[in-house]
């Protein structure tokens, strides 16, 4: 390897959906530079999506049943209480333990869970280091076990930033209205201060160590993005229903501000790491940031996890990584195997992840050993008798309660300990269920149910019974749940009636009225929750009927559900799946289209739509949908197969074979692509490549072998079929009235396809038409349609160019015209439309604004890697159309019809000569 060391940075809950928006606006320049010069990709998370479990999987490369961290807290049977989950509970060796054994120095900061700090070769500052639970005036002692080695305690104590130290200079960038907020009643500023101070503390400690100690590996974990998302994502734009206007205005910028602050910290880390360091930035999961943000959370422990999204981020940057590359199919389990490979160390076969060799500039040699767990020597682990102080544990626990991650255990400690133990088992059952081990999951759940009877345990039991094909048992369980829910509904309705009549009584005192109101609100929440639970029961029932092939019954249940919740994606998905099983392709197609109307990024729906179109013989449409599915999630064998099959029917043999080979390399046990490739070979339409032979011989049939995917892609010459001109869009931009319509006419005449809906008809202002599309006007709020403009030319006014999504390349022809002329022309147009008077004075302010908008758009385009542009003067176009047409043809790299373009120029259209 070329690099001397590795820096691993964890940003809990960071999500490309938000980052891409911020990078497009130039608000995260450091990460943007890392992406440009490195590798980016999605990072799949694991179930359940709970941070201590996930970050332990990241540090060990193992599922939670192997590493032993199963939740936020654990019973402390010796201390007779519960405590935050500790590093002592981890039973698998982490990357820093392995590196210690190899004599390499690691610095680890705030990794979750790392308290008490482990005696590694290097520095470890635990995850309880930065927490401040009391005012600074009350003192801020550091908990024992926070820092290793102990002689660094005083130093790192000074690196902590207390929330009370922060000033308006730190808060106003996040909340510009902070000064006007009543902080006695609104505690959000206090919560935000803690997040900023936490991040600053960890950053100060880690930057000190990066600068002043020797290290081979540094790992830094920040939770402020996750915490700010849980607290403030509901206030982010676009405004969610039910969010009051004042709160929205006050807090809409907090999440974006936190990302930007992290980008600033990242810049410092990269400076200190230097060019000889490989840097990996990751998150454990994403966070819903758009219309998919949940309106309410389930009423159960760890409910905030319902806001998490399946995909986190990964960005690899440094001497040993590719540049400007995207990787697919990565999981949080892959981080430790990748780190070991970077250090030239063997990967344990008992690890569940794989090295991300797609990210490496040169394919590395991957060494392996059976397991690193049994190797003897010094690994920098805890002694077995290392105890955690119960009081210290309680203080840390309080923090978790305040953050909303865990329920307040209450006074009944024994009960709390029992409940904690149950939660750990429940989380473990989810691990088993999500990793194909329903039998183990069921055993645990039945054990839990014997101790505590709750809806969530019963529904999980039914799910696992279904997985085990014990359909009758599963249906019996669902019947029982249904009865329980009906009783619950009756009870809730009765109490609601009682409380409503209490509320109606006028004579009650104000304080009692408030209490009744709050009880009513709680009951309404409970009623909504019961309704959701009924839906889950019926959805599962429909799934069981489908598995039993009793499709009519399944459809009957789903139709009932659909009447109650017409926009439920789960119901639509289940319905589409059932219709496919019934071979009702058109109906299934419609169901998938309904899903995509709600969520245009649903890769499963694109795949389903491709499948239906394929069955309906609409192969070109099938190719389009399958391509979209693979663009959203590349590691998607079923989508690659449908793509290959559809291309085969279109006679695109070469691309068909490539897609089928990729599908097969991703999942060797997948028979459908193999059968089709054999058929193609018999028909003389395909010659098997080396990659396929290797696939059969060497691959573990249950997993994805990246090395072979890379080889299949390499053999194929291109990654997969991407069609022609996919991903590139031509844009004509400029200020309104600067000749954009004229340029659209020229390009149209030159042979380019125009993206227009022709809604805006030609008029006196633009006699030859506007060439616009209504969807472009909504670009700032909805860009899901952008792929429709691929290969075409669309008109986007300067003010909207910054909203062009970065997942496409753009060639922009910018029309430039004297701003004074533009201003006058716009003014005349307004007069003609009756929206301004002829006698109105020259709009000087408008001129200034237009100039700023034009310059702003130009500056934005200059900063974007995916945008190239050419400025074309309006008058030059009128006076020398031949020269301009040729310039544009060269810029676009297209063989345009120059004569036809010239013929479009009509000097009579030259309007509003400036007369100031």
């Amino acid at each position, binding site marked *: 390897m070329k690099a001397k060391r590795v820096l691993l940075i964890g940003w809990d809950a960071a999500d490309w959906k938000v980052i891409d928006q911020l990078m497009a606006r130039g608000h995260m320049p450091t990460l943007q530079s890392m992406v440009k010069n490195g590798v980016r990709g999605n990072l799949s998370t694991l179930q359940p999506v709970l941070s201590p479990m996930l970050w332990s999987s990241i540090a060990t490369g193992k599922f939670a049943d192997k590493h032993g961290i199963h939740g936020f807290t654990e019973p402390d049977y010796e201390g007779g209480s519960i405590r935050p989950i500790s590093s002592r509970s981890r039973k698998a060796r982490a990357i820093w333990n392995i590196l210690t054994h190899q004599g390499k120095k690691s610095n680890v900061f705030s990794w979750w869970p790392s308290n008490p700090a482990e005696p590694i070769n290097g520095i470890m500052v635990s995850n309880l280091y930065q927490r401040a639970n009391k005012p600074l005036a009350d003192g801020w002692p550091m908990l024992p076990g926070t820092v290793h080695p102990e002689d660094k305690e005083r130093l790192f104590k000074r690196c902590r930033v207390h929330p009370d130290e922060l000033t308006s200079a730190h808060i106003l960038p996040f909340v510009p209205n902070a000064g006007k907020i009543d902080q006695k009643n609104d505690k959000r500023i206090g919560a935000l201060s803690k997040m*900023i101070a936490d*991040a600053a503390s960890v*950053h*100060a400690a880690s*930057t000190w160590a990066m600068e002043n100690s020797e290290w081979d590996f540094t790992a830094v974990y920040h939770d402020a993005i996750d915490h700010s998302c849980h607290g403030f994502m509901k206030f982010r734009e676009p405004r969610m229903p039910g969010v009051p206007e004042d709160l929205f205005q006050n807090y809409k910028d907090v999440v974006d501000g936190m990302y930007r602050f992290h980008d600033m910290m990242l*810049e*410092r880390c990269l400076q200190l790491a230097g060019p000889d360091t490989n840097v990996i930035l990751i998150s454990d999961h994403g966070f819903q940031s758009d219309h998919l943000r949940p309106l309410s959370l389930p009423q159960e422990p760890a409910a905030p996890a319902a806001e998490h999204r399946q995909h986190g981020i990964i960005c690899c940057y440094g001497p040993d990584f590719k540049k400007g590359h995207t990787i697919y199919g990565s999981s949080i389990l892959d981080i430790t195997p990748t780190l070991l490979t970077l250090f030239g160390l063997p990967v344990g076969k008992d690890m569940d992840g794989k090295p991300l060799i797609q990210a490496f500039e040169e394919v590395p040699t991957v060494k392996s050993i059976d397991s690193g767990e049994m190797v003897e020597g010094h690994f920098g682990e805890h002694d077995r008798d290392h105890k955690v102080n119960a009081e210290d544990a309680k203080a840390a626990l309080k923090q978790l309660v305040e953050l909303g991650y865990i329920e307040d255990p209450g006074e009944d400690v024994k009960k709390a300990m029992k409940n904690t133990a149950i939660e750990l088992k429940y989380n473990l059952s989810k691990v088993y269920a999500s990793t194909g081990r329903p039998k183990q999951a069921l055993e645990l759940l039945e054990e839990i149910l014997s101790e505590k009877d709750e809806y969530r345990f019963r529904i999980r039991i039914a799910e696992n019974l279904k997985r085990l094909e014990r359909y009758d048992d599963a249906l019996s369980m669902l019947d029982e749940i249904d009865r329980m829910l009906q009783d619950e509904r009756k009870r809730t309705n009765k109490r609601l009636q009682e409380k409503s009549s209490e509320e109606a009584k006028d004579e009650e005192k104000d304080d009692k009225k408030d209490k009744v109101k709050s009880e009513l609100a709680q009951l309404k929440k409970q009623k909504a929750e019961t309704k959701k639970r009924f839906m889950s029961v019926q959805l599962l029932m429909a799934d069981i009927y489908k598995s039993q092939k009793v499709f009519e019954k399944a459809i009957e249940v789903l139709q009932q559900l659909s009447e109650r919740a017409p926009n439920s994606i789960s119901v639509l998905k289940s319905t589409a799946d059932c219709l496919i099983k019934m071979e009702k392709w058109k109906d299934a197609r419609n169901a998938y289209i309904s899903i995509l109307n709600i969520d245009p990024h649903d890769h499963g729906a694109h795949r389903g739509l491709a499948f239906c179109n394929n069955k309906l013989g609409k192969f070109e449409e099938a190719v389009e949908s399958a391509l979209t599915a693979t663009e959203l999630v590349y590691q998607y064998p079923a989508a690659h197969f449908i793509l290959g099959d559809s291309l085969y029917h279109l006679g695109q043999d070469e691309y068909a074979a490539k897609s089928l080979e990729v599908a097969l390399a991703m999942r060797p046990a997948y028979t459908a692509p193999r059968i089709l490739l054999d058929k193609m070979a018999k028909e003389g339409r395909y010659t098997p490549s080396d990659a396929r032979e290797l696939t059969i011989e060497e691959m573990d049939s249950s997993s994805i072998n990246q090395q072979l995917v890379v080889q299949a892609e390499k053999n194929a010459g291109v990654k997969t079929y991407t069609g022609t001109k996919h991903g590139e869009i031509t844009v004509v931009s400029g200020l309104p009235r600067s000749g954009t319509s004229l340029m659209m006419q020229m390009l149209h005449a030159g042979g380019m396809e125009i993206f227009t809906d022709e809604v805006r008809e030609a008029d006196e202002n633009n006699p030859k038409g506007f060439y616009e599309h209504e969807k472009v006007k909504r670009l700032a709020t909805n860009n899901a349609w952008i792929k429709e403009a691929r290969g075409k030319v669309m008109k986007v006014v300067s003010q909207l160019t910054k909203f062009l999504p970065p997942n496409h390349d753009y060639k922009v022809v910018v029309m430039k015209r004297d701003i004074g002329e533009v201003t006058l022309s716009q003014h005349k147009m307004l007069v003609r439309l009756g929206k301004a008077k002829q006698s109105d004075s020259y709009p000087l302010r408008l001129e200034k604004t237009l100039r700023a908008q034009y310059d702003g758009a130009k500056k934005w385009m200059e900063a974007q890697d995916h945008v190239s542009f050419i400025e074309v003067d309006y008058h030059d176009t009128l006076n020398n159309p031949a020269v301009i047409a040729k310039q544009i043809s060269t810029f676009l790299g297209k063989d345009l019809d120059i004569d036809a373009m010239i013929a479009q120029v009509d000097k009579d259209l030259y309007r509003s000569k400036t007369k100031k």
Partner: protein
Amino acid sequence: MADKRRQQYKIPLEGSLGLLALGYEGLVAWRKVRHDAGQLKEMNINKQKKEKGEGAE
């Protein structure tokens, strides 16, 4: 404090996000400014007390 281009920055007493983003160095620099300002304030108070004949502490 100075950056690589050796430009001098006046560190504001109230701090800034930029200083926190600089990490340890930024934090130390900010605290030094606060500390110095605190000392200056104390000196001024003592001076005023002295002028009033109350005696410095």
